[in-house]
């Protein structure tokens, strides 16, 4: 498949930007997600990038003063950062202490290739 076709299709290829600060790169024959600001490697494309990030929990009322009107004090905004350059790559709203939830798991390249071939 040529470069133009890849970009128009669902192909996952090195250089593909994911959102703002993530990018697909090739490393040791496999595809990984990296920080396109500092090069930090989050992990394989098939793994949620937050697993390779760092995070902090901020009470919702600190994110926004209006949130202080909420009767609950156990809700937090979980913020995920690149460990290298601290760019924020994801946020979520949780009860304090709840397990982390993934955002995305891109299909491994083999599955990507076979489904494209089938389509």
């Amino acid at each position, binding site marked *: 498949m040529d470069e133009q076709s890849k970009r128009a299709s669902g192909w996952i290829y090195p250089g593909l930007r994911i959102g703002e600060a993530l990018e697909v790169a090739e490393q040791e024959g496999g595809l990984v997600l990296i920080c396109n600001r500092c090069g930090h490697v989050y992990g394989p494309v098939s793994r949620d990038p937050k697993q390779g990030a760092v995070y902090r929990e901020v009470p*919702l009322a600190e994110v926004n003063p209006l949130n202080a009107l909420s009767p609950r004090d156990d809700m937090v905004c979980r913020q995920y950062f690149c460990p290298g350059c601290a760019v924020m790559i994801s946020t979520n709203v949780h009860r304090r202490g709840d397990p982390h939830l*993934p955002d995305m798991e*891109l299909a491994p390249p083999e599955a990507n290739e076979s489904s494209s071939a089938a389509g």
Partner: protein
Amino acid sequence: MQAAPRGETLDPITYEVLRHRLWAINDEQGLLAAQMSGSPVVYEAYDFNSALMSYRGDTLFIGVYVTRLSLSIDIAVKNIVKDYSRDPGIHEGDMFLTNDPWVGAVHMNDYIVVAPIHHEGRVVCWTGLCMHEMDVGGPVPGSFVVGARDIYGEAPVLPPLKVVEAGRLRPDVERMFIRNSRTPEFNALDLRARIAAINKTRQRIAEIIETYGVDTFLAVQERLLEDVRRRLGRRLAELPDGAWYEHGYIDHDGSTDALYEIKVAMTKRGERLTFDFRGTSPQAPGMINCTYTGLWGGVMAAMLTLLCYDMPWATGAISGLVEIISEEGTVNNARHPAAVSAATVAATFMTFNVCMQAIAKMYACSERYRGELMATGWPGWIGANFSGLDQRGRYFTATMLDTGGGGGARSTRDGLDVEGTPGSPKMAMSNIETVERLYPLLYLYRKEQPATLGPGKYRGGAGLELGRLVHKAASPVRCFVFGHGINQSEARGLMGGLPGSVNANVVYRRAWQPQGAPAAGRSLPGGSEEMGAVEGAVLAAKDMTMLENGDAIVTYCCGGGGYGDPLEREPHLVSADAAQGLCDVQSAVRLYGVVLDPQSLAPDLLATAKTRDAVRRGRRGTSLAVEGWSVGAAGGA
């Protein structure tokens, strides 16, 4: 059994002419009904929708009003065909009326009328109209029953009944429909409006058949379904394969202030999408549940909005590319006799939100479609119903459709400030003048509230703050509120954007008296900060309070979620926000790390760079490694 007509035998010009004509007929049906309705929630706020279906009951066109209302009309048709074909039979000139959420309605206020359209004795298509009735009975005015534990404590449920038989309105069914309502005049007119509009559609379809022939008409239906299936399949094939996850909460079940979670794992493989809701909370002992009809409507509304924006909304075709996995007995797939009176604005709404966010995350992984994504906008419903004696001494009950939240941020620009209801392109906000004429309410103000928006590289839109005053009521006014997104923010950010605010209702007692001095020296308060020394009382997500003349209720509607790290927002955009009153100098630093000159509001780029560096150092200093990982509802891709 009819032989399936072959769509490919149509010439393309005839197909395009008839495709557009059918779209117009469906739109005309909805608008005609709205114009004949006497209910302001229908003729002003456009809380209705229409659907045109194939001879098999597959949806060909969904109207552009409140999509969620009509997305399960086809389910009602298929249930009627399954259950009633033999007895009482489905005949020319018949129309069926139902509000049964286990048959095809979403909640009891949204009565559906569906009708087969015949030609020479056989069904050639179906049509249907759904309208939100102001009140359909039950213990609470407006029929959103805060405190109900199951459906027996809510409004009456009507399984499909023949309301028109062989072209004749059945007065017994009409009377049953009207008898239970506190707003019988509105409901009666709405029923006649639906019947008249459907009769007009019958006339229009007959004109098409007379001109083009029935075989062509049936072939257009097949071709339309094939086209949409092909176009959506192509779009899905252009997106990466993978799994995307989202979750959200519904606050308060009407009795207990608990959180109910809706989880989705959306998997895309080739041309197919699977929405897996396993892990969603069990159904609630209260009004917030929806049945499978609401689940289906929530998923389809998200797909129409983000994936099908440039193709006919033929969900009869889309359904062939989608699988929904859900456990019965959960909050968005509730078993009878669950309470469901707030289904449209609770579990269905939240189902829509999590699907929108999952699709947006998928778009974030595509160079081609990244520009189409949108973070969650105006996700948290904040409904209110007022009832009592109006300024003329007559009983009134009014469910308000006068709120509006902020739009979700896009990947290339900010969200809309005060957008309409998501997934409902032509729904509108009620006109203030109409509300004030009909009900003992006076609007103090309705304005954009900057504190509601979600910051990001591109920010979410600001939501509304509105103040309503009880004025000239002939009795104390009972106010029920039934919102969510009250206890926590539902306007999620995307790709590092921050969430928008919570929703809130705050009551200010004796905020203003007609003969007294205004609280802050003005003729009327212009914001909650001008309510003087009166202390506000924050209402729960589901609550009831009595209001006297002069009492005000202030409603904050959440803003949209942001997109991208707020530290990467261009400083001149922050400055522009400040110039528009959507940001102040302090919040520019706190949210974006942008230092503005207090007088000119121009950004100080050097100070901004230093501030942002300091914020990033702070992030590194306070962050932890990610542990305690949990896979999504589907257990991973």
